[in-house]
């Protein structure tokens, strides 16, 4: 009896622990699980669409249903899967890589997660409502997204993104401050690991790119909920404004996703080549250059809008320019491996598979940047092929590389390498099979976002092949799931430094103690831990004497605050004033509570630290 009670007690504790945690390592796990959940949902949506498109004039999901699938697939994958998974890796690795005990604002970190989570949940709940899921594409172009044409699904889109976008913005600001302020002694900017660098740059991108989206969503929200006319042409509105706002955000967004993946590869490839990153300085330079340029190219999504040849030419040239820093990166990776000793671990397989896949996505990107050619490519399956090559072949491969690489640090266990490689190969083959044919499907005249195509247009064979590829990716995902479950059940315990790593995170136990570093390490150069190892040291040289460690206290407020805004959203969607008042009351009330209550945190004392060893 008593064991039963204590068991239940413990279980409740874990749930409470995660609801209230402000520890970046646990928030990383939250992001990882939420992101994976939405990745699975988005993946199922993708497979359902591919089943519909497997044969011409299929009758599985037609019209609105298909449009809902394509909208939710895109929205989920970009905002609710890729974004949080990027944040999962950032949370897991960055404080450790810079030798910090946590992020700058642990409370905000938790708030960022819960806002994202409730936003994502809100949008996904639309499936179960009478109005159904949004059916407007992840780009939600006006006027299709206005109430005249679509129902409450579009409201779920607008409010869900608004909530989760606020979360992302908060997360971005938090990482900016963390990286600027919390680096260990000796960790100058030009000694930061490249993953930290790219995360730093994308945090800045988030800071500048999400506000335009927020503005766009506000205009849309006012049009939808309160009858404003920003996008209503009959009332003097303009539909192109939305496209501009969306893509001023949307283009940097793809770099927000891909740059951290580049960062992962810049960690994984050197580690498993046993060589330092080739051209570190030019890598940093290329990253920042890409980030600057990414704000000057959005019109390449709008060449067919009719902005005229002058605008089109300028944006075309600016866009192709991005190929230069990107090329620099690819060659730096290749030459990192050159002369190295390449180990084919699963993490590295993803990195290696990424190189040819991403280069293909990159070159089609340059082709798309040429307006005359884009007049054919635009809104055709060629575009679908292109962005899946960069997002799947780039971002997702990067996330998997990062996950297999940092999993031992996050969980203290090793993922099974055999299953990992099977996962990789199935994914790699399925991916190319699904998306390579889509390049010529587009040129053969297949527009994107169509729920069907007629027989006799020679589109049948390659659509069939593409669907088989998607199904293989589905099988790959099942292998991945088996791997995760098996690792949780009886995973091999991971040592502190399973990969002979180069950066600070490998100098502390797996998983690290809640305070990460007992003593803040002293950083002597790039690849700080590798330097120590080469000098025959097993540990980092400490930068401070052993002392009490100050920790932030856990809080349920971020959860409650986000829940309040989540509740209020339903009030806005269905125009129920009491629900709005209750929801906003909870949200604003917890903000007030947070502001009035002093939270001094707590200390872990020296003797406790000694007791725990480490």
């Amino acid at each position: 009896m008593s064991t039963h009670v204590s068991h239940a007690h413990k279980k409740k504790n874990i749930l409470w622990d995660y609801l209230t945690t402000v520890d970046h390592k646990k928030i990383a796990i939250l992001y990882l699980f939420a992101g994976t959940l939405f990745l699975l949902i988005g993946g199922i949506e993708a497979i359902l669409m591919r089943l519909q498109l497997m044969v011409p004039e299929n009758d599985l999901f037609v019209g609105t249903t298909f449009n809902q699938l394509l909208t939710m697939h895109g929205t989920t994958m970009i905002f609710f899967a890729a974004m949080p998974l990027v944040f999962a890796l950032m949370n897991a690795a960055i404080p450790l890589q810079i030798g910090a005990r946590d992020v700058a604002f642990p409370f905000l970190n938790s708030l960022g997660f819960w806002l994202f989570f409730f936003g994502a949940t809100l949008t996904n709940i639309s499936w179960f409502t009478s109005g159904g899921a949004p059916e407007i594409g992840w780009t939600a172009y006006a006027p299709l997204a206005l109430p005249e044409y679509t129902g409450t699904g579009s409201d779920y889109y607008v409010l869900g993104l608004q909530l989760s976008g606020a979360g992302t913005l908060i997360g971005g600001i938090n990482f900016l401050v963390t990286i600027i302020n919390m680096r260990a002694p000796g960790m100058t900017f030009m000694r930061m690991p490249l993953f930290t660098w790219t995360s730093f740059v994308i945090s800045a991108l988030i800071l500048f790119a999400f506000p335009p989206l927020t503005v766009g969503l506000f205009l849309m929200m006012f049009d939808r909920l309160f009858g404003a006319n920003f996008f209503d042409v009959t009332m003097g509105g303009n539909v192109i404004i939305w496209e501009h706002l969306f893509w001023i955000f949307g283009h940097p967004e793809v770099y927000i996703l891909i740059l951290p993946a580049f960062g992962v590869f810049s960690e994984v490839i050197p580690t498993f080549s046993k060589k330092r990153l080739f051209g570190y300085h030019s890598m940093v330079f290329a990253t920042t250059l890409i980030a600057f340029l990414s704000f000057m190219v959005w019109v390449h999504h709008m060449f067919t809008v009719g902005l005229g040849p002058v605008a089109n030419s300028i944006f075309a040239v600016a866009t192709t320019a991005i190929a230069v820093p990107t090329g620099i990166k690819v060659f730096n990776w290749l030459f990192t491996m050159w002369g190295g000793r390449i180990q084919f671990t699963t993490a590295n397989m993803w990195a290696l598979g990424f190189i040819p896949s991403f280069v293909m996505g990159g070159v089609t990107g340059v082709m798309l940047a040429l307006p005359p050619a884009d007049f054919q490519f635009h809104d055709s399956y060629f575009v679908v092929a292109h962005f899946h090559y960069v997002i799947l072949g780039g971002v997702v491969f990067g996330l998997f590389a990062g996950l297999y690489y940092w999993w031992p640090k996050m969980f203290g266990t090793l993922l099974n390498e055999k299953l990992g490689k099977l996962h990789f190969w199935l994914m790699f083959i399925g991916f190319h099979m699904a998306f390579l044919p889509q390049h010529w499907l587009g040129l053969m005249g297949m527009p994107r976002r169509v729920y069907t195509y007629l027989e006799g247009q020679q589109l049948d064979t390659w659509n069939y092949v593409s669907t088989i590829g998607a199904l293989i990716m589905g099988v790959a995902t099942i292998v991945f799931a088996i791997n995760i479950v098996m690792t949780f059940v009886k995973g091999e315990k991971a040592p502190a430094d399973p990969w002979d790593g180069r950066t600070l995170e490998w100098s502390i136990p797996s998983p690290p103690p809640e305070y990460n570093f007992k003593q803040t390490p002293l950083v002597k150069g790039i690849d700080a831990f590798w330097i120590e190892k080469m000098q025959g040291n097993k540990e980092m040289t400490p930068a401070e004497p052993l002392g009490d460690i100050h920790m932030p206290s856990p809080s349920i407020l971020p959860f409650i605050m986000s829940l309040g805004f989540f509740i209020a959203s339903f009030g806005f969607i269905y125009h129920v004033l009491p629900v709005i008042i209750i929801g906003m009351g909870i949200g604003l009330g917890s903000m007030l509570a947070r502001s009035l209550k002093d939270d001094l945190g707590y200390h872990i004392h020296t003797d406790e630290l000694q007791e725990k060893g480490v």
Partner: protein
Amino acid sequence: MKKGNLWRLLFLVSTLALVLTGCGDPELSALDPKGTGADMQLDLIMLSLYIMLGVMAVVIVIFTYVLIRYRQRPGDNHIPKQVEGNTKLEIIWTVIPIILLIILAVPTVYQTFVLAEDAAETTEDPVEIKVTAHQYWWEVEYPEYEIVTAQDIYIPAGERVHIELTSVDVIHSFWVPALGGKMDANPGLVNEMWLEAKQPGTYKGKCAELCGASHAKMDFKVVALERDQFEKWVADMKEPAPEPTTVSAQEGKQLFENNCMACHATDAGQKSLGPNLNGIADRKTIAGFMDNDKENLEKWITDPAARDVKPGSSGPKGMPAFHDKLTEEEISKVAEYLQTLTIE
């Protein structure tokens, strides 16, 4: 890994082979251009493709070499030399791409301006066509000839025609891959473009911007005729249709006047809420995508928004279903009447 590379290479070669053979539906594919615009576009696509394949080849060769040459061998535990970088190499792979991009930029900018030219640049007194997108059909107007029609756009071959695009509801995109790219049809705004078919023929067009439930079925045709044939078409369009001869078709006409006239004009110059049905019997398709026969006409009139027809198309501005307003027999009569609306 070696196998994987071979496999990738095979895939690459097959891609190239595919693109080079220019496959696809000859009325549809951008890889088999039938218009001057599409020709230019394909040229640029091929130029960029060759440059990009060159870049890819370099990457793949280095990649394959590195993986084979520097893979970890059993028992090898040496620590490689930690190389910081190499300025010379880094300059090379910065400068060469810049040169390649400049090579690409020149024809790109040139063509961007050519495609944005007025049709009158090369064609004297080009045919003016106003194309208006509706959820889910295309209205076509020839102001100088006072002709209004739908779905099928007749043009003279061998000359540029001037197209003005707009939309009455959401954003659509006008795409004729075999003739020359696409342009958006935006509500409240007018876009201009030119099209030129090199030879007579029928070319398939599609809506390329997600515009609602039946976006996938918003097809149209561009029919290019020799100049004299085109002029004959114009003249024929303006002739009133012959009176129906059979009794059932005459009854059909009556039913049509009672049920359909509110939305469908049948004389050449008149705009209406729905497509002008003058010459419907000669259209390439019904509603842009179904074979033009009596059975499909009946199917359309019975329930245009059926799952296998154009789902979601019976909205406030769409065509209502008639299965509860007319009997099967009556629908058949209407269809019979519509089949007499020919211009030949």
